[in-house]
């Protein structure tokens, strides 16, 4: 790894990381307080709607089976579309920096003119991406703790179970980031790589939702990254989603290596 590349990348991304981290902290604080507090009102109104039930089941990744309890509301705070959008936006922003971002803004010539190998560049950028990913998720967790600290003790979620959900979310973050990295390594335009990555996560989201209401989609729902992120069973039963995390981790590793190989072999120049 190269310290100079890490410093340069940190200098270029800290503002986005801080902004998105604060956003996640705020959203988590609100959701973790509001949802359990007003669970009766939500249960009486929204949760009676078929559409909302399917949508929630898609987000939670499991059958609700009429069980509406504080655990379900706590887990919504970890699967809310705004939370996922913030986490994915961060992963996509950081993982399209090199090479697509550098080629796009014309700075790749000067960067590759320095004595740093492409693998070293890849590893240094990845290090910063993972560190800032952990930071942003920690800010989300801080928001969650802050919000739920206002709840009565019996309604507060179990911290150790929340940590398991956070670890699962980190794996999801890494898988989405690695897919974005692959798209970036094949592109010369950052906008194109960002669009493709957002398209892929949106498709993943839709597939998970469709799988709740349409059986053909259910058969291929394993292709969606959200299929491997199910906070509700974790928060209810405290079990480690080892298989889901393994699949996401393996996908992240495989996609990252593929991205690195492509980045290392391709021609890169703005001329």
């Amino acid at each position, binding site marked *: 790894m*190269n310290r100079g590349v890490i410093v340069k990348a940190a200098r270029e991304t800290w503002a986005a990381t801080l902004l998105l981290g604060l956003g996640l902290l705020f959203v988590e604080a609100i959701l973790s307080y509001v949802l359990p507090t007003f669970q009766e009102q939500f249960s009486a109104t929204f949760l009676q709607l078929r559409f909302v039930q399917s949508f929630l089941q898609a987000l939670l990744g499991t059958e609700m089976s009429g069980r509406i309890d504080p655990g379900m509301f706590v887990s919504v705070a970890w699967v809310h579309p705004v939370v996922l959008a913030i986490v994915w936006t961060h992963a996509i922003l950081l993982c399209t920096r090199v090479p697509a971002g550098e080629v796009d803004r014309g700075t790749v010539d000067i960067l590759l003119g320095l004595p740093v190998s492409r693998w070293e560049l890849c590893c240094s950028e990845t290090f910063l991406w993972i560190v800032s990913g952990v930071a942003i998720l920690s800010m989300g967790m801080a928001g969650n703790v802050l919000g739920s600290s206002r709840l009565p003790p019996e309604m507060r979620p179990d911290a150790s179970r929340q940590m398991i959900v956070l670890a699962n979310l980190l794996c999801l973050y890494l898988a989405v980031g690695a897919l974005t990295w692959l798209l970036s390594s094949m592109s010369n335009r950052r906008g194109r790589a960002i669009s493709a990555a957002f398209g892929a996560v949106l498709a993943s989201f839709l597939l998970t939702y469709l799988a709740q209401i349409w059986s053909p989609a259910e058969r291929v729902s394993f292709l969606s990254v959200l299929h491997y992120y199910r906070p509700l069973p974790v928060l209810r039963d405290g079990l480690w989603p080892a298989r889901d995390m393994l699949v996401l981790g393996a996908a992240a590793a495989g996609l990252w290596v593929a991205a690195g190989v492509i980045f290392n072999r391709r021609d890169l120049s703005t001329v």
Partner: protein
Amino acid sequence: MLLGFLRPTAGRASVFGLDCWRNSSRIKADVGYLPGDLRLPSWMNGGEALRIFGMIRRRDMLRQGPDLAERFALDLGVRVSEMSRGMRQKLGLVLALAHRPRLLILDEPTAGLDPLMQEALRHLLREMAAAGHTVFFSSHTLGEVEQLCERVAILREGRLVADASLEELRGRSQREVTILWNGEASAPEDPPPFLRLAAREGRTWSGHLAGPVRELLVWAASQPIEDIRIGHPDLESLFRRYYRQGSDAS
């Protein structure tokens, strides 16, 4: 290709005896590079650029950098986003030179520089060349190449059509001859066989010598000539000739 941006489709390129694709980062440790279309991250100022590039290079670029900036009259405190084209070019040059590389690869280095700074750069490059550094210099301003370079290569449609010292290139070419006759009527009908005329304009003939100089001098002594100039072609006419030859061949 020399810096490992592009992979050769055939053959290989090497610098310092190392393969440019496989050992790219080792080679670049001793290379200073200025791209033709220099773009730097807009948030950096000169000082930050020297610090960060130095960290990436694992060299202290802040030792030489400020001196170089002073020679180019560059304020290192200005952010790239607020710099003019010329200032960015100067910063690019400082970043390429501050680690005293063995090899400098400069693509159009004088672009955007005022004449005084161009002269300062030429002076600096001569100093570096005299100290044993190799300067690989690409330019469309041939007068500049002529002033600076010892060895010249000419590329035509991506192919190397000439690669020799300037003297050798001149020696290989026919001498340019310009004759000024006493009067328009005094010029003979036909030129001698060793003189290939390219143009006749009033009292003036210009062309190339296709034989020994002595033969031309003997012939000229018996002619009503007011003035005669025999010289080597400049780089621009050599360049034109190479391009014309290429076009004729194709």
